[in-house]
């Protein structure tokens, strides 16, 4: 991916994205914590089985989008970036597959270890599905001015 540095900053520092799946033609958008793998240029979100309706949507239709519009808590300036991509669901190891993202999770939410310590109390919250999103199109609005046309980012 040949993203400008300000787009790269968004991917590396924003805490959350607005993630959309499609339910029978209807867009369903929720704020989600995301992880960005700079090496593969792929995005990952994880979902508890408790909040797995979006996973059911993606199993029927893997077309998704991630919007990065909220710099709150990230320490970087506001820009808006849209990623459209194809979601791949990994739910064969609900107890452990997501653990490889713990180092990135810990950086974003340093208090997550407190929740992990109560893993038995929140057992089903920690049964988590991994969703890997391969980007197909990226559009970016510098300074978040969406009244202007976006820049296309080369993949």
């Amino acid at each position: 991916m040949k993203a400008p540095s300000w787009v790269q900053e968004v991917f590396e520092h924003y805490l959350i994205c607005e993630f959309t799946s499609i339910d029978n033609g209807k867009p369903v958008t929720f704020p989600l914590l995301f992880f960005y793998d700079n090496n593969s240029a792929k995005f990952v979100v994880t979902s508890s089985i408790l909040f797995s309706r979006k996973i059911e949507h993606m199993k029927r239709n893997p077309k998704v989008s991630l919007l990065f519009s909220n710099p709150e808590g990230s320490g970087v300036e506001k820009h808006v970036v849209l990623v459209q991509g194809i979601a791949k669901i990994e739910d064969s190891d609900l107890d452990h597959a997501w653990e490889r993202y713990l180092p990135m999770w810990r950086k974003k939410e340093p208090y997550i270890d407190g929740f992990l310590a109560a893993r038995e109390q929140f057992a089903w919250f920690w049964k988590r599905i991994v969703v890997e999103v391969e980007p197909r199109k990226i559009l970016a609005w510098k300074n978040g001015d969406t009244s202007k046309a976006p820049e296309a980012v080369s993949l």
Partner: protein
Amino acid sequence: MEERRYLQGSGGSQPLTALELVDPDRLSLFRYGVVTWIDKDGFPFSVATDFLLSENGEILLRKPSAYPTMMGAGASVGVLFNHITGIPTGGYTDRRYMLVWGRVSEDKGFLKLHPEEVSEWDEKILPFDKLCAAAVPQGKKYLESLQPSIDA
């Protein structure tokens, strides 16, 4: 983070009005909305935009440049209003969102949103542990969907 409260404007014997669906006092606490539609390639297309609340409770979204002219009147969209507060030592708190589905019509540079359904959550009203408890049936359903068929 899924629904704390879900309301639908049609389908019942007495359809709910826009003001009954969307609490304008709660909506006014959000700074902007994320409008999403399905684009010509079948992908969700989201864009952030400012919004205004008119005196009679109408939701007016500033029309983003990316909004396609071919959408026409009465196009269906979802609009997420979301809030978090960053914590200086890392992470965030004060999570709340409101997701409104409805139709939009163009009105002097704005998209007027006609709400039909809403789903919302505010952790100050429903703490996260209680939200998890309420979601157990969905977790059970998902686990059951992973079980191999026991049909002979």
